[in-house]
């Protein structure tokens, strides 16, 4: 299972289409994702930074606090200018820009699993 967490549902759906939609779950806020994560632990998470309610950093701290979720690779998908290096302490493996990402970039992230 792959999680896509983005408050812009249309953008999340686009990412799901590039992957196999049946293997993805879309969440529009961090709380819903956290509530599901123990039951259906994902192998990879695509995460937007600015979310309604708790933001991506709250989510990252939460998953880093538990053994079963701490090692899940996270790919940040954002329109903010961020570098992977600055987010490494949060367990982020890659940062994709919403403005330049292509379906190929999204599929390439599957190698992180």
């Amino acid at each position, binding site marked *: 299972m792959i999680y896509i967490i983005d*408050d*812009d*549902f*249309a*953008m999340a*759906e*686009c*990412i799901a*289409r*590039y992957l196999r939609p049946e293997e993805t779950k879309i969440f*529009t*806020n961090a709380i819903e994702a956290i509530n599901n994560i123990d039951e259906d632990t994902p192998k990879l998470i695509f995460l937007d930074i*600015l979310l*309604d*309610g708790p933001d991506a950093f709250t989510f990252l701290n939460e998953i880093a606090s538990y053994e079963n979720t701490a090692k899940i690779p996270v790919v940040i998908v954002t*329109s*903010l200018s961020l570098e992977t290096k600055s987010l490494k302490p949060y367990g982020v493996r890659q940062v994709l820009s*919403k*403005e330049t*990402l*292509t*379906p190929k970039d999204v599929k390439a992230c599957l190698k992180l699993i």
Partner: protein
Amino acid sequence: MAHELKGPLALLRQLAFSLEYADSDGERHKIQQEMIDVSERAIKQINDLTRITRVESGLFDLEPVAIRSVCNEVTSELRQLFSANHKNLQLEYRNRSRLVVGNRDLIHSVIYNFCINALHYSEEDTASFLTVYDRHNHVRLEVRDYGPALPVDVWRAMKQGWLEQPTSIAMRPGSSGLGLYIASKFSKAMNAPVGAVRHRDGTSFYVELPASRQESLFA
């Protein structure tokens, strides 16, 4: 501001890529419709921004406006969009809702932007309410959404200066930071107070337009 305008373009680009991945005609049609909706909203925002320059130069008329007709128009324009997002927009008139003094186009934009904000922040399967009611010598238009509460710091910033510039609350595609900024500019131009009320389960944004005395001619 440029950031807000980049959002819809980034989404349009992804929707264009997505067309190739659609597995049925129905899915393709859905993506095409989303592309049309996103571009229409972006065009509207750009039009509003160009209109702000005219507003700042005072190049607009204030006249009696039938508020019901504007509210009916906005809600019928947006109902489909709300429904596509599994949300609902309801319109409620608490009393007879008099004529107001304002500019029809600007009032339309203020209500439209408040409703788009509600669309963005309300939770799925909830209804947002556009309520219109008389309040002393004013008519108050209020848009209430049911979603995450407005963060306290943003609410305080709004109380102090309201939205003098696009806020960081919504630096997202199709979002409301820019829309609320536009709404606040237009309301100010019409001397209409605007504000936000923070609820535990959402937010209400309101504007109070002066009631027109011409109404007595129709009584």
